[in-house]
């Protein structure tokens, strides 16, 4: 039995077309794009073509794109560097971020709060939705940046970034969105949304890990995190990750072309899966299920059992899923994202599993996963003290 991979939100395989695009750069195209000689110029030309591909995918010009090492670097750069754009540099030191941001924003913002920034963490409701009035109310005189992700990596909830951008701009505030889970998966045009900064990552869209791109709106300046060489138009020093850049350009271009199809096909798989799990396995709950969600993601809490145990057993039987985000695997705390949705019901948060579908997900996998899941949940509930207690209560 081939394994079944349902963790596309954690990372994706490199797609064959991307691999093919990379190969020349493992071989003869090795120059440093900053070099003036032929070896350098060839690579530079290809790099700029990749930049154009990324730009086109989000409806902007190549000069607006800065390549970096991933969405983490992009997010930290924006959070740390945004203020330079304001004359009132120090004065605009209030950030607003949602409670469901990826750790690289959430933890960085917490850290900045310790360092003297003012930070407001915007709560979400039990469906994972953000209330725009709450957002407006959180704005202060000194608010400099609002950062809300486009698509949540754990629940798939889609946030109204266009509306948030408008609210921010009406108050003279910069708006950043982490689109690591959105770019290449759902329509995302900066001309329509009008964000000031957008973060993207290659490895969520079938390019390698360790490459990202940052969109910087015309006229906005970001203090670079990496300083030194003149690469990326003085916006990010360091020899460029050429393999990653070529891959990201190709991957994003293809992603946009295939988006409508993927949405339909993968969405149908996800929906069928979810439908069956919710009906065939008792005491299950979709996290963020009533919100506007991306078609790839299903986050489900299986009451009375702990997520890691479910994940491990699925893994043993050849099915890869995750609990929380891969990035939080170094901690035992339940996902802060799922916690935010569970109204503090930590048991529910501990019971959640994320299933994320992608390009290589096949229809035949759905019944296999559902039946294996039903079996595993039944086994684990079979010796769960919480389930036992629940049954007693039902009886009594």
């Amino acid at each position, binding site marked *: 039995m081939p394994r079944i991979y349902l963790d596309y939100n954690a990372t994706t395989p490199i797609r064959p077309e991307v691999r093919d695009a990379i190969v020349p750069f493992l071989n003869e195209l090795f120059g440093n794009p900053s070099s003036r000689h032929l070896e350098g110029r060839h690579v530079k030309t290809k790099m700029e073509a990749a930049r154009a591909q990324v730009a086109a995918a989000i409806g902007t010009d190549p000069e607006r794109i800065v390549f970096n090492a991933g969405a983490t670097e992009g997010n930290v750069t924006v959070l740390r560097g945004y203020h330079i754009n304001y004359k009132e540099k120090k004065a605009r030191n209030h950030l607003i971020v949602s409670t469901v941001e990826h750790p690289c924003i959430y933890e960085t913002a917490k850290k900045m709060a310790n360092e003297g920034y003012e930070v407001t963490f915007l709560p979400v409701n039990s469906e994972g939705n953000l209330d725009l009035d709450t957002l407006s109310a959180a704005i202060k005189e000194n608010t400099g940046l609002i950062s809300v992700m486009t698509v949540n990596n754990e629940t798939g909830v889609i946030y109204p970034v266009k509306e948030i951008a408008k609210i921010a701009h009406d108050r003279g505030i910069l708006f950043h969105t982490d689109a690591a889970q959105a770019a290449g998966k759902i329509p995302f045009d900066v001309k329509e949304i009008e964000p000031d900064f957008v973060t993207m990552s290659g490895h969520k869209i079938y390019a390698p890990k360790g490459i990202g791109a940052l969109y910087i709106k015309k006229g906005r300046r970001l203090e670079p995190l990496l300083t030194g060489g003149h690469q990326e138009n003085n916006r990010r020093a360091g020899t460029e990750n050429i393999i990653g850049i070529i891959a990201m350009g190709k991957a994003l271009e293809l992603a946009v072309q295939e988006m409508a199809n993927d949405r339909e096909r993968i969405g149908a798989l996800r929906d069928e899966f979810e439908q069956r799990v919710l009906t065939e396995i008792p005491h299950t709950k979709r996290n963020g299920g009533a919100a506007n969600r991306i078609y790839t993601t299903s986050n489900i809490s299986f009451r009375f059992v*702990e997520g890691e*145990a479910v994940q491990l057993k699925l893994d043993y039987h050849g099915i890869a899923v995750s609990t929380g985000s891969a990035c939080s695997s*170094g*901690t*035992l705390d339940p996902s802060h994202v799922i916690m935010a949705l569970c109204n503090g019901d*930590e048991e529910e948060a501990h019971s959640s599993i994320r299933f994320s579908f992608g390009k290589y997900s096949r229809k035949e996998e759905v019944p296999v996963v559902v039946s294996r899941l039903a079996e595993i949940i039944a086994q684990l509930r079979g*010796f*769960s003290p919480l389930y036992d207690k629940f049954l007693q209560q039902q009886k009594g």
Partner: protein
Amino acid sequence: MEYTEKVMDHFMNPRNVGKIENADAVAEVGNPSCGDVIKMYLKISNDIIEDIKFQTFGCGAAIAVSSKTTEMVKGKTITEALELTRDQVANELGGLPAIKMHCSNLAADALHQAIKTYLKEHGRS
């Protein structure tokens, strides 16, 4: 974070799962918000643990540790069982990931608590 083969064995095929209806000693430790709840049921006769079963809500480590603990003390005296430490259980399993050493390694606590309650109930502590 990787589990040893022994952990995986006890996790996938936990020994002594379930409950004992008329147990002589019972204890539950942990709570759902920590992600781990372990409940131990003991059948004790002549200070010997004749039977032991557990119910666990928790991660792979918590389940494996519960299973191993029951295996280690079944047939032993309660005095011996009281001497069993968390570390011994972890060692028998070939070690646990560092991050799991404290939070998920609660089975010995449940065992000790069950026995202590038993002794108290029998006026022996």
